[in-house]
């Protein structure tokens, strides 16, 4: 991507190229300019104000929103919830995705159908699935407590219990995202040269040793990729929280993205919501940078 010298612009063809480039980029640049870059700056400005979306003036209050945030026990509860939810869903999705991929990587009949079954929750509409899971977690007539009863366990009152609402959301989300992890693990597995595993087996390594000494280490770049993409999307979870629990009961499932929505569009605190969004953005940015760093370090070079 070596840059040509600007002097070349003087030739008519180059000037035409330049004009075409600007013309082709214009729609995207306008959209990004307004709805991403201007919006980011506007958001930062809003975070220093107190405003209810309606009054004609925004009161500039400096860092007060951020000070309030630090003193807000609900904010810390929300942060803890967000990490609890994200770490748990990512850990289980990774584990299930890996197991599914390791099994489906072998030759077997019906592999295509099985792959479709595991992957379909991931691509279907979350809000509609969240409705389904409200019904599944119904304490009296739902499928979950029926299944637990079959093995002799009295199920909890899932979505209305401060203890069990979060695990319920985690179960639903793991069900939804394991297929994603599986698909990417499968892609990673096909990149591992078959000869490596065969060579290990000829040298006397059993299936267990091959898995731990060959397959998993070579899969590590894939694992890191899935880990971070899942973590970033888990932090942004909104739909199932909004539909299944609305952050409740008593904020037991209130996560950062839902809290921002609640502050902005239910309590009309635009300034405070904007300051929360700044923190949210910084967390996601940190994760993305960490991912880029990690992937550079972990990319497997054959």
């Amino acid at each position, binding site marked *: 991507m070596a840059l040509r010298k600007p002097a070349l612009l003087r030739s008519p063809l180059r000037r035409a190229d330049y004009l075409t480039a600007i013309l*082709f980029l214009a729609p995207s640049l306008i*959209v990004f300019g307004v709805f991403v870059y201007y919006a980011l700056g506007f958001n930062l400005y809003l975070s220093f104000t107190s405003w209810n979306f309606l009054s004609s003036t925004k009161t500039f209050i400096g860092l007060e929103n951020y000070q309030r945030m630090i003193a807000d026990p609900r904010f810390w509860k929300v942060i803890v919830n967000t990490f609890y939810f994200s770490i748990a869903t990512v850990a289980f999705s990774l584990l299930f995705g890996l197991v599914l991929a390791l099994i489906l990587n072998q030759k077997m009949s019906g592999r295509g159908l099985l792959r479709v079954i595991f992957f379909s929750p991931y691509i279907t509409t979350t809000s509609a699935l969240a409705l389904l899971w409200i019904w599944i977690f119904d304490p009296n007539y739902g499928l979950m407590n029926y299944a637990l009863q079959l093995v002799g366990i009295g199920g909890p009152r899932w979505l209305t219990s401060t203890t069990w609402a979060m695990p319920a959301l985690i179960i639903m989300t793991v069900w939804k995202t394991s297929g994603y992890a599986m698909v990417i693990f499968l892609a990673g597995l096909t990149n591992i040269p078959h000869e490596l595993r065969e060579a290990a087996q000829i040298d006397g390594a059993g299936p267990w040793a091959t898995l731990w000494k060959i397959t998993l280490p070579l899969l590590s770049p894939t694992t890191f990729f899935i880990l971070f993409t899942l973590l970033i999307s888990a932090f942004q979870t909104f739909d199932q929280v909004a539909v299944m629990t609305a952050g409740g009961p008593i904020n037991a499932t209130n996560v950062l993205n839902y809290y921002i*929505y609640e502050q902005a569009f239910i309590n009309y605190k635009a300034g405070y919501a904007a300051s929360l969004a700044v923190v949210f953005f910084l967390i996601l940015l940190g994760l993305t940078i960490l991912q880029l760093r990690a992937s550079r370090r972990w990319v497997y070079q054959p």
Partner: protein
Amino acid sequence: MRQSISKKAVIMRRQHIGTIIRIISFALIVVLAVVVAIPFLWMISTSLKPDLRAVFQFPPQWIPHPPAWDNYLKAWNSAPFNRYLMNSVIVSVSTVVFEVINACLAAYVFSKIRFPGRDLLFLLFLAVMMVPSQVIVVPNYIILSKLGWIDTYWALIVPFVASAYGTFMIRQAFLDVPDDLVDAARVDGASHFTILRYVMIPLSRPMILTFALLNFNWRWNDYFWTLIMTNSDTMRTLPVGVIAMQAGAEGGTNWHYMMAAAVIVILPVLVLFAMTQRYFVEGISHTGLKGV
């Protein structure tokens, strides 16, 4: 001699272990598939129950007798589903069409036209990928209401017609097209647009189709943005409409109608996925899809 026999025995035992592992893992995967499929089956089962008494029957009866197919008609008529469906189609299709056009135009510039400042512009595009729409929803709500676009199609379409992610994906495909081909066409007098239209796009069709499908799926399933940017029933899409229907139900949820409605919402996605599975899976394995 003795050594070779024992070696043979080891190999045979290992083959035995291999077969056992294979059987166990097949059994495990079938069990897991059933566990993953059961929520869907439960949804369909409930959607076909004749009345609430059958819905709340405990232990549940999996195959309703007789199946109440007209629940689907009743669910469809209990809320303006015609309108929801139309809105979903209008919003997703137009977003994806404009998004693909813009991404192709930008990808062409970033792969085939050289000019000073290009790398900086490309960096500005890449940086957009680090800003999820959730983070900037408050200012965007204000911007869109200043434009008078809240509760219109514009609010659901315009902010999404450019895609950094799509530009990046399609650029990867365009980079594979030899520069010589483009230069030769330029010398012959073809305009950049002609080259894009008749050379680049036809040669990169699989990647463009993959991107279009992933984004159609993503826009179709959107709940968050549509919930915030619309407030009247006539502007709702299927994912938001079905939740409004549940919230509007008085005195307990009619789960048989609700599940019928939920099936209606997810069916188009599942059919599309079944038909284009290969593109979906390949696209996601290459790039990773945003959002859950």
